[in-house]
């Protein structure tokens, strides 16, 4: 009983922290119609600013709080002004992609400045505890409750009674009408980003003090948790975000009590998927139908694709195959092999997100499924890789499609969030299903690729194999896009309602796209597993998914050659110039930001 109370208190405290995050996300969604994926980065920066103030300036808590709030507010306003305001009027997914690019940049800057090692944030609080029931409440719990309640009160007062608060609410209801009535919506946006970021930063500080631990990797999970809370409450609904946060905090806390810590995030994301599928407008979003605006979910800029002459493409392909005869450096071949494998994933992504317009942030999970399927078949069941790799492709196609299937009726931002969550869930299931996947230990000793007793281990052989697979998939995808299926996918991307009215079964064609893409990504994952010989739940994480998105956008969404080019540029070039990993992510972020802003059609143009 006592422990139940403890878990409840813990759940509410964590819920309070999530609420500070989620309220900001809800406010931003309200006025800017945007899921801000950089919110977790602001939260992390808040934590680090607080840590620096306490460690170097020895500031007392209220001063630390003020410094964090001010610094993050400034950062938020800056983000809005520099990265998002120029994107007004673009495809709705554009600012979302920009915030992903920003989060890459900010997280990596934190890591470069403060080192990737975790830090301790001294809370400097007395260590008495008030016993209640069988549990107890400590000063940290009370402090968090106090700060979050005060913030909520101040926010309520601001929205309810100040002139700017009125303007914020008006803008949230109808941006254009507010503008017509003389509301300076840019100023409103700025203010909202500042307030939301201040709250997010405070949340980061409090979490750092609560766990006495901060690290640069905390950003992404924080964003995700905030998004979960916001979806539960109904996206854009501020009180809903608070209730959603408390529900999320309690669910996680009770989940940990029942099943253990590693299940915590699994509960969070399962809750998210449940809400997206059953109640996409959340608890308080009302029953308004998500309306079908054409062209909102896709990132297809009306542009003419660059047409490369067929002989040039053929010559490049021949050159790629002939390269191992001239370049003998195994390092170069290895780098290009990685690029070919990445290109397979980029191809799969450009099909679902470009051709079919279903923005997928979970493509790495398909690789993970393929990799695990082949690795486990080869190690635990002694199946030859010749058989296990294609089986792995099929497994990724079937399991991947089945997992996304419930999300097929979602659009735009929602499908992106759902695929991201599904990607996380796949990783967490791999982590927790120890008897089958070996859990956190991973799979070791995966045999190299072999066929008929011949092992494919030399750098050359591996290079040729991967290149041949890539060319085969690219040709198949080209056939697919030129068939009636390609036409149908583009139609449902442009306007689902009109497509349905002409007899297109939306789910069937989305399933075909995800199935085909899943096979390619699964094979890529399976091959990678045999090349790496080791695999764990983090080998194919969400960052890789987002990298695949960046590759596809760089080449031009839906563009087959573009996806290959994007993979070669983003995987090959940083390797060739031997950038350290943290700089590489920074470059990816900058590339994504610049693309979204200046060349949304990518290098070769969207198709």
């Amino acid at each position, binding site marked *: 009983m006592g422990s139940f109370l403890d878990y409840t208190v813990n759940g509410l405290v964590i819920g309070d922290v999530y609420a500070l995050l989620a309220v900001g996300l809800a406010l931003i969604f309200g006025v800017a119609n945007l899921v801000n994926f950089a919110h977790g980065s602001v939260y992390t920066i808040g934590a680090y600013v607080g840590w620096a103030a306490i460690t170097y300036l020895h500031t007392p808590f209220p001063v630390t709080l003020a410094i964090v709030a001010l610094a993050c507010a400034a950062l938020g306003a800056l983000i809005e002004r520099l990265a998002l305001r120029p994107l007004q009027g673009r495809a709705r997914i554009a600012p979302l992609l920009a915030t992903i690019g920003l989060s890459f940049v900010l997280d990596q800057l934190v890591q470069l400045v403060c080192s990737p090692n975790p830090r301790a944030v001294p809370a400097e609080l007395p260590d008495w505890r008030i016993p209640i029931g069988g549990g107890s409440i400590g000063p940290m719990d009370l402090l968090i409750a106090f700060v979050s309640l005060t913030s909520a009160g101040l926010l309520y007062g601001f929205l309810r009674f100040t002139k700017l608060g009125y303007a914020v609410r008006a803008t949230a209801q109808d941006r254009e009408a507010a503008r017509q009535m003389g509301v300076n919506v840019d100023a409103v946006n700025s203010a909202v980003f500042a307030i939301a970021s201040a709250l997010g930063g405070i949340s980061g500080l409090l979490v750092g003090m609560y766990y006495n631990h901060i690290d640069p990797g905390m950003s992404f999970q924080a964003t995700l948790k905030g998004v979960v809370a916001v979806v539960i409450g109904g996206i854009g609904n501020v009180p809903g975000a608070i209730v959603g946060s408390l529900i999320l905090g309690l669910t996680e806390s009770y989940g940990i009590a029942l099943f253990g810590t590693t299940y915590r995030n699994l509960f969070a994301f399962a809750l998210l998927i449940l809400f997206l599928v059953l109640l996409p407008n959340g608890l308080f979003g009302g029953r308004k139908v998500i309306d079908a605006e054409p062209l909102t979910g896709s990132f297809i800029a*009306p542009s003419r694709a660059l047409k490369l002459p067929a002989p040039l493409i053929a010559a490049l392909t021949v050159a790629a195959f002939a390269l191992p005869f001239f370049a003998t450096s195994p390092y170069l071949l290895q780098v290009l092999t990685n690029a070919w494998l990445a290109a397979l994933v980029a191809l799969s992504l450009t099909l679902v997100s470009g051709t079919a317009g279903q923005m997928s942030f979970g493509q790495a999970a398909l690789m993970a499924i393929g990799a695990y399927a082949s690795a486990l078949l080869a190690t635990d069941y002694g199946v030859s890789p010749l058989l296990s790799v294609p089986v792995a492709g099929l497994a990724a196609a079937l399991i991947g499609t089945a997992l996304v299937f419930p999300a097929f009726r979602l659009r735009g931002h929602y499908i992106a969030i759902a695929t991201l969550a599904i990607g996380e869930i796949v990783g967490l299931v791999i982590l927790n299903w120890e008897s089958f996947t070996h859990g956190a230990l991973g799979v070791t000793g995966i045999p190299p690729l072999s066929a008929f007793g011949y092992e494919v281990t030399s750098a050359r052989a591996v290079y040729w194999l991967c290149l041949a697979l890539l060319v085969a998939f690219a040709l198949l995808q080209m*056939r697919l896009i030129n068939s009636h*299926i390609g036409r149908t996918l583009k139609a449902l991307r442009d306007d689902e309602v*009109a497509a349905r*009215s002409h007899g297109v079964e939306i789910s069937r064609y989305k399933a075909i796209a995800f199935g085909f893409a899943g096979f390619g990504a699964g094979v890529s994952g399976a091959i990678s597993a045999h090349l790496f010989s080791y695999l764990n739940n983090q080998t194919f994480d969400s960052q890789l998914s987002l990298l695949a998105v960046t590759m596809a956008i760089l080449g031009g969404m839906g563009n087959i050659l573009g996806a290959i080019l994007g993979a070669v540029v983003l995987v090959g070039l940083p390797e060739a110039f031997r950038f350290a990993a943290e700089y590489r992510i920074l470059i990816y972020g900058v590339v994504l930001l610049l693309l979204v802003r200046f060349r949304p059609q990518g290098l070769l143009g969207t198709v």
Partner: protein
Amino acid sequence: MAALLQVRALTRRFGGVTAVDALDFEVAEGELVSLIGPNGAGKTTTFNLVSGLDRAASGEVLFDGRRIERLAAEKIAALRIARTFQHGRVFANLSVLDNVLIGAHTRLKAARPKLGPIAELLVALVGPRGVREEQAQLVEDAKAILARFGDRLTPRLDHPAYSLSYANRRRLEIARALALRPRLLMLDEPTAGMNPTETAEMEAIIGDLKRSGLTILLIEHKLDMVMRLSDRVYVLDDGKRIAAGRPAEVRDDPAVIEAYLGHSRIGETRAEAAE
């Protein structure tokens, strides 16, 4: 003989507003029937209900004697009911030809084997001769349909739809609907936003379609055109049917005149149903 389309007591509410209120009407084979009425009368909502994009609270829709009010839009399209949209919804990034070919989606036989989606994918990847022949034949058919619009669309076969003028998008939408080989064609304000020349041209095309025996349900605000084209007219106001009959009968109906020129009681609240 029973009418091709029969709508009985169809009702749709949005919150407190009854957008379509116990509506009855029917369209016989080969007939051109118009739905007219002021903005907010429930015409487009009726289209959405019949075409399966919206669900009625109650009432029945019978097509060829079969209940269809619970069917999904894609199933209704498969029964060969085609529609266009009030504001024009072409597939912006598809070419003109591909837009029309999407209209012919339900006619794909070889490309959509009955075995299911996996077979469909494999057939598309292999591309056997039957599929290629079917495609070629549909392309010819699509070109013939586009030729109905004279030189408006044919020279632009490969242009993406987003590059078309507004009027051309409306034409393309009708071409796309015709590619379905509809038994019933539902046109939602086909001449909205068109100038008088373009309107006359469109009227001639609709007249041709009618003479070819096509059954048409039309929503239109340009009453001269409605009167000339229609066999029968239903007048809607506030979701209710307030008059029905031949064009000449409806034109002189006092209820219709009131609906168009204003309500007799000043200040009477009018439901602003979502059109």
